[in-house]
Structures are given as C-alpha cells and as structure tokens.
C-alpha cells in the first residue's frame, strides 16, 4: 500500500476515506487525540503518513493537537486533525488562533450525540453551529458535510484546497454514520486530482499580512529569513499587535470578507427533484440519505417533494434558498440536533419550516422525514 494516491476502487469506511483524501490532497502532518467515532482516521493516518513522507503525532490532548497543527502548517506541511464533539470543543481556542493568524489546516469532526460525553458510539449532528461560531469573536468559516465515503474522500481534497487557497482552518463535518459505513470509493489517478497549494510569499520586504487583491496575503515560509511575527492579538499588516478598535475593524473585516467575496466558489449543494417541488427538505450528511428516501416515498404518494442537500454547510447558501422559496411553498429541515441549520433556513426563506429533529443516537428513519413532508403540505 506504499502509494501516495490509493488509485482505483476500494471498499472503505468514511473515516478511512477521509484520511485517504487528505493524503491525496497533500496532507503530510497529522496531530490528534483518539476519540470515538473518529479514531479510525488517526489510525489510518498513523499507518499511511510515514509511507508518503509525512509525520503522525498522537498528542496529549486536543488542545495540543490543534496547536501542533498550526505549528506544522507554518512549518510548511499541509496538516490535519480528526476529532469528535468533546475534542472539537477543546480545539475551539486554537481554531480561533488559526482564523486570526490565517493558518491553513483541516479539522475532521466525526460528530456524535452530545452534549458532553453523550453517546460516544452513536450519531449526532449537533456541532454545526459550533463549527460556525465555536471560537469567540467574529469570523467566517468553511464547513463541508459528506454523505458517503466517496464524498469523504472528495471533500477531504476540497477541504485542503479551500484551506490552502483562502488560508483558513476548514472543518469537514462528518457524522458517526457516514464515518462508519462502508461503501465503494473510486479514486482517480493522482494526475486527475486537483490540488491547490497556498500562495507563498517570495518578497522579504513585503509585510506578512499584506493581502493581494483577493484579500488573501501570500504566506511566508519560516526559516528563510523573512523574520515574520505571527500573533493571535489583533495586528497590523506587519503582524505586530495593535490594540485598537480601528485595527480590529480593518483586520477582522478582511478575514470575514475574504470568505464572503469568494462564497460563490465555495458554496455547494445537490438539488434532488427540486425542479417541480412543492415541498423541499433541507438536509446534510447522513440525514440527507434518509431524506432522499423520504422524497422518493413522498413522490410515490403523489407529493411533489424534493431535497436540497448541503454539501457545504458554511458558507450557507441563503441565495439558493431565496430562489427556491419563489417556487416551493413548503420547507422541511431534517437534522440530528435541536434545530441548528433550521435557524439559517428560516432566516433565508423568512418563514417557518417544518422541523424534523432528532436528539441523536440514530439517523432519521425515512418515514420520520416523510411524516415531516406530509405535515408540511397538509
């Protein structure tokens, strides 16, 4: 198995597929702390990274993992960690440091049911808002949500590409079900996988945080005499702390805008039978697979149902929803939490949606989503 890209057809779990995707994207550093149901990602990486010239470290906790990730990223390695709810909570501090210092890296969160230790081995989707707002302060995030091992592979590549291109920590919001189920994963040859690398600064005179027109500053390498200073404090373009409201406005506004102006390149969704739909289910991850079945069942009953599946959760596709609300009259949201994406959906469509929530432990049965669809059209 000493190959960089595991070309061909394989029967893999989502956890293993996301690891393979990362390696294909050029990930060469992994720091993590074991936690169910994400540990298989670490296990795979510990076996695979040395084969491709990379480094795997099992850190002492998730705080350390996230810190090491940022360090390694500045050291020039594409870096990743994998965790689940409680570990994700511990990573939030340095997730914020990654945002503030514009450090590319990827965090895989295989969601389980919480709060707290909750159901370690069973599914949840309760970290959606934590991925968005988990660290303190204003910022924009990128979070992807795969529904199958194939997408785990594909989205790991995409997550790295986003993180490198926009210089931002990117979250792959998996869930236990997708992480643990096995399916065929078809991996193209290396030459056919688009891999984006960060812009590297070559001008030693240029300030470390002087952005290009796309609002993204190229990243200087360490150990090459650039003499960079990187701080989590609000800083100016030289990277030096400036403790004023003006500096904060300027810096954080750019951090937000660099994602907002590129939102259209990032946002991605699947429309399933939405063309003539009266009622649209919004779902992501494993819930989308239940919803897809429910839509088919509804169509069999003569209800014009469709689904909008969020492949990228953040940035949220508000524009798309505003388009859909022109055509469809009813909206249903199915997610394994107490209503997180629901809030975003209702904000976009400016009316109530039927909420089919589950507190976690199992994915929606298709008939549960169908009930929501029927309630919506009643």
């Amino acid at each position, binding site marked *: 198995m000493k190959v960089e890209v595991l070309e061909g*057809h394989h*029967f893999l779990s989502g956890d293993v597929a996301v690891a393979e995707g990362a390696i294909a994207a050029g990930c060469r550093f992994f720091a993590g702390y074991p936690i169910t149901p994400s540990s298989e990602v670490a296990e795979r990486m510990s076996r695979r990274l040395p084969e491709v010239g990379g480094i795997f470290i099992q850190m002492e906790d998730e705080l350390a993992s996230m810190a090491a990730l940022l360090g390694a990223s500045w050291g020039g390695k594409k870096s990743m960690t994998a965790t689940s709810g409680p570990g994700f909570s511990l990573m939030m501090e340095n997730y914020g440091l990654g945002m503030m210092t514009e450090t590319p890296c990827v965090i895989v969160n295989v969601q389980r049911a919480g709060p707290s230790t909750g159901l370690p081995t069973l599914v949840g989707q309760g970290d959606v808002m934590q991925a968005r707002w988990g660290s303190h302060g204003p910022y924009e995030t990128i979070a992807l949500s795969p529904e199958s091992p194939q997408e785990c592979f594909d989205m790991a590549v995409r997550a790295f590409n986003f993180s490198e291109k926009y210089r931002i920590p990117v979250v792959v919001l998996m869930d*236990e*079900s997708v992480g643990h*189920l*096995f*399916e065929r994963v078809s991996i193209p040859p290396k030459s056919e996988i688009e891999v984006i690398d960060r812009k590297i600064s070559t001008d030693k005179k240029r300030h470390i945080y002087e952005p290009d027109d796309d609002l993204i500053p190229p990243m200087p390498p360490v150990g090459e005499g650039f003499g960079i200073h990187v701080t989590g404090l609000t800083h100016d373009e030289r990277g030096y702390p400036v403790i004023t409201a003006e500096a904060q406005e300027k810096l954080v506004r750019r951090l937000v805008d660099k994602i907002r102006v590129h939102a259209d390149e990032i946002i991605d969704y699947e429309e399933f039978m939405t063309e003539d739909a009266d009622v649209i289910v919004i779902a992501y991850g494993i819930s989308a*697979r239940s919803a897809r079945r429910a839509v088919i069942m509804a169509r069999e009953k003569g209800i014009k149902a469709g689904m909008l599946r969020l492949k990228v959760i953040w940035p949220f596709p508000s524009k798309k929803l505003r388009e859909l609300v022109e055509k469809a009259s009813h909206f249903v949201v199915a997610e394994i939490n107490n209503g997180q994406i629901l809030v975003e959906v209702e904000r976009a469509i400016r009316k109530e949606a039927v909420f089919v929530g589950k507190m976690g432990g199992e*994915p929606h049965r*298709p008939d549960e989503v169908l009930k929501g669809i029927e309630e919506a059209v009643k």
Partner: protein
Amino acid sequence: MARIELQIGGFGGQGVILAGLVIARALSLYDKREAVFTQSYGPEARGGASSSGVVVDDSKVDYPYPTKPDIMVIMSQEAFTTYFPKLKKGGTLIIERDLVKIDGKPEGVGEFHSIPATKIAEELGNRIVANIVMVGFITKVTGIVTKESAKKAVLEMVPKKVKALNEKAFETGYGYEEE
C-alpha cells in the same frame, strides 16, 4: 433488481461484522453493484447482540441501514429475539441451527434455511471460521452475491496464514446440503 436488505445478527466475537463486510465488499467491488455496509456500534457490540447490515441496490443506496430486511441471518438466540421481528414478511430466514432453538420455520417467513455453522467450523479445525461457513451458505441459498466474488472477498480479507482454512470453510458452507 431493486433494493435488497440483508442483516446478520449474532453475539460479539462470532464474526458477524466480517461476514457482512465480506458480502458487501464482494457486491460492491466484484459484482459491481451498489452496496453499503453498516454495523451496530457501541458497548453492546462487545459481548451482547451484534449485527451488521448490507443494503444492495441498482442505483446508489440512499438510506444505508436495513429497515425491513429481506434476508435475516441469525447466529444466536439473543440475536433472534432482538432482530427477528424486523424481518420483512415473506423474507428469508437463515439460522445457526445449534445456537438458535426454534421449532421449524416461524410464521410469516418465506424461505427458511438452517446450518450448524459452528459445528462445521469446529470439524474443519477452528470454530472461528463459523462466520465464513455462514457466508458460503448465504451465498449459496440466497444468490445475493456471486460465488466467485464472495470467495475472492473472503480470501482478500483474512490473514494470509488462515487463507486455506477460510477457503475450506467457505466451500463447505457453500456445499452444505440441508437435511
């Protein structure tokens, strides 16, 4: 062929996970079907009832878990109590004859098969291959997966030094004649 759901239940340590994984892999990679494999996770999988599921379809499988299994394979009494009620009406029931004590074919079951997989495995030299005996038997009586594919998957997924034993287990299960 439309969606078919297969569920294999037993107790932890019987290898029901590997049995399901072998069949799903064979379907997906060699029979070129759309197949998904899932398993029950959690402390109950360590010692208690444990199960794995295979769903196969013509197009990409949507909901990946068995809801009303078309085929139910049961390898312990406890698993029978837990999982049997989910079997689709008229579905196929396959049991480990020595470990599931029932009086013939239960009501509502379509096809019914039984095999003393554990005893056969013991006779072959190691009870650990009971699950592979079962895979051979499932392959034969349900036709859900082709023999070549199933065998290939078995040989791929077991450690090198027990390949021969597993091959024999598969063939014995496949060739088993019910009384």
